[in-house]
């Protein structure tokens, strides 16, 4: 049976891991390569790097961190943050990423999703959607790390993303991110029911029950979490044992 995935996410800035509280107050949580090794050994199913300030800062640091991580970890590595061109994707894949996550560039140009999935294969194209609730059962796509509104409806956009060949959707609730109050389950379930590609739930995890809800109520294929793992509140193994005890199929 296919197992549900746990993906620790490392938000990386200047080659260091940070995790923002609603994307502002940044705390340092260590070296991404060391963290990735710990997660790999600890049983993470995949690892995700998000270069949160990639649009403005030096990207070479990130590429070297990606390459160093790929030498040490034999599980899939997704890298995102400021990916805007075919060249960016190529550089990340060459450095050792297995998948790239594309956000703003995909919103600006839907054809970029198509172009990149034909060129590199759907399996390595993850489309990151930052969603903000704007009404009852209504969410809007935001870009630039949640700073810019787009007027685009998340549900409509998710269909476009799938149609253009994305392999997966990384769905982040901007309202929940950093709040530790749990995923936006309504949002996650709606999008998951709508498209046939896997959904990664993201934004708001504060405890293990939240991970469970991501699968049981949000119907996600994978859950992404950062701070609950980084600061040692829970290990990946504890999370998996908890999920297994609740009947979620996980790789132990």
């Amino acid at each position, binding site marked *: 049976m296919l197992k549900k995935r746990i993906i620790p996410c490392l938000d990386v800035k200047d080659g260091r891991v940070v995790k923002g509280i609603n994307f502002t107050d940044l705390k340092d949580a260590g070296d991404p390569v060391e963290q990735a090794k710990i997660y790999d050994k600890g049983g993470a199913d995949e690892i995700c790097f998000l270069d949160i300030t990639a649009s403005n800062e030096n990207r070479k640091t990130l590429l070297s961190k990606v390459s160093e991580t790929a030498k040490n970890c034999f599980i899939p590595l997704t890298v995102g943050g400021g990916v805007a061109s075919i060249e960016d994707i190529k550089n990340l894949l060459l450095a050792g990423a*297995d998948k790239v996550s594309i956000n703003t560039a995909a919103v600006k140009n839907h054809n970029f999703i198509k172009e990149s999935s034909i060129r590199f294969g759907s399996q390595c194209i993850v489309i990151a959607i930052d969603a903000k609730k704007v009404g009852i059962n209504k969410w809007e796509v935001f870009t630039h790390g949640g700073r810019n509104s787009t007027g685009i409806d998340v549900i409509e956009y998710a269909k476009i993303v799938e149609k253009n060949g994305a392999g997966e959707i990384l769905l982040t609730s901007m309202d929940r991110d950093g709040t530790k109050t749990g995923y936006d389950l309504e949002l996650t379930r709606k999008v998951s029911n709508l498209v046939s590609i896997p959904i990664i739930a993201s934004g708001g995890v504060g405890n293990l029950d939240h991970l469970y809800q991501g699968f049981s109520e949000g119907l996600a294929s994978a859950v992404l979490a950062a701070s609950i793992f980084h600061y040692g509140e829970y290990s990946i193994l504890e999370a998996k044992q908890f999920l297994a005890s609740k009947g979620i199929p996980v790789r132990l």
Partner: protein
Amino acid sequence: MYVSIVDYGTGNLNSVSKALEAAAANINKKLSIKISNNPKDILDSDKIILPGQGSYRQCVLGLKNISGLWDSINEFVLIKKKPIFGICVGMQLFSDQGFEEEITQGFGWIKGSVKKIQLNNKDLKLPHMGWNEVSIAKKNDLFVDIKNLSHFYFVHSYAFEAENIDNIICATDYEKPITAALLKENIFGTQFHPEKSQENGIKLLSNFLNWNL
């Protein structure tokens, strides 16, 4: 030992190479790895790895686009009869034909076709992506010391439908049995990614390096 990883512009070859290095180190094997698209390198190799990502058709076109590469792989496999390890679409190319985009002829070494996975349960997603258990249907040299129902990492929407089930040595379950590994004489391939499957994947690569026909 000299192993070539066939480079035809597909996917992340570095991760295959790094995993192969780890696999060689675990069994204290001296290994020289070349990532190459040069037909001479292919023919000089002791073993080759044929990776593959993206669509069946794009992979065939990619291989045929490099002068002499397709023929050299055929010669390596059919005439020299040396070991090949196909990964993901690399394994799918062993078939007669693939149905992705449009019908495309493959190497035709293992009778069968590559077709889109059909699912009745609408809760199941495509691609079939993530860690799934692999059941070993037939005892073989490649899966020595790998437990039955070990987890391996898959990501694909198309599957190999082999005509002769004797060629299927491993299967996984996604509503129905899906070909996870094929073996026919010197021809071996997996639908999953050993280079992304932690210890089990490294062990499988070690076994491939140790494999004597």
